[in-house]
């Protein structure tokens, strides 16, 4: 497998998990978009293009997994805060289960490969 193909897989992986990472970030508190982007950046390697967060947030709103409200800000114009909905919690719980199984299976296979035959 070429390096390019492996990197494409990584891009697809990121794309698949990113919305659940966002939901996890706002599981216990509401946050505004820029703070979410920063938190994802700090998590390391999850977001290559920060701007793509905004389409993602838009889709989460459309799908009813988050709601938003505007709040005044002392440091500038009002900010839009994102908050998880019950549907969002359900989706996140389902993903956590799926991810645990997926990660376990992949880790086991990768470990097996490493030992060789």
């Amino acid at each position, binding site marked *: 497998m070429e390096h390019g193909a492996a990197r494409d897989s990584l891009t697809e992986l990121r794309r698949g998990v990113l919305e659940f990472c966002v939901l996890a970030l706002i599981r216990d508190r509401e946050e505004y978009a820029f703070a979410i*982007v920063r938190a994802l950046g700090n998590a390391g390697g999850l977001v290559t*293009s*920060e701007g*793509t967060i905004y*389409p993602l947030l838009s889709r989460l709103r459309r799908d009813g997994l988050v709601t938003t409200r505007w709040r005044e800000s002392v440091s500038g114009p009002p900010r839009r805060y994102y908050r998880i909905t019950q549907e969002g919690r359900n989706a996140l719980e389902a993903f956590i289960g799926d991810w645990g199984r997926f990660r376990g299976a992949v880790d086991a296979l990768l470990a097996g490969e490493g030992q060789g035959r």
Partner: protein
Amino acid sequence: MNAMHPDPLVRDYLGRLDAAAWPLSADRRAELATEVRDHIEAALAEEGRRDEVAVRNILERLGSPQDIVAAEASRQPGGAPIIVNVASPPAGTWGPLEVAAVLLLTVGAVVLPVFGPLIGLLLVWMSPRLGRREKAIGTLIFVLLVVLPILGLIAVVPGGSAPVSGWMRLA
């Protein structure tokens, strides 16, 4: 359209984002523009400086407008479509093809006679963004700048110093 941003790099970026966002509905296009604008402002405030290096880094981390708009087109279970314009970009917006065509037709007549405008005319007819009226105007320019002078040359040259006799010979 939003008010112009003071920084030229940001203004250029937002312009490219607006152009790239033609497939989106007008509402979503405006909303995305605001979100990206607010992001840039927040990032600049966080940096504490607004010099060119800071702006470039922020815009680079944002990613290309094309990538951002591409991310809009992900699966939607239901509801109104966000991507509404799946056909060619709206007429009237010129891309590099159209600019090259115009340049070749006009400047090309001087710099690269006959061939420049010929290629320019070809590009005009190939362009999906130019309407019939623009294509007709392009053809007219070609005729005026290329065809007529060629006919004039044919008339003048064989007839020696007398253009009138040359025309009469052709007739």
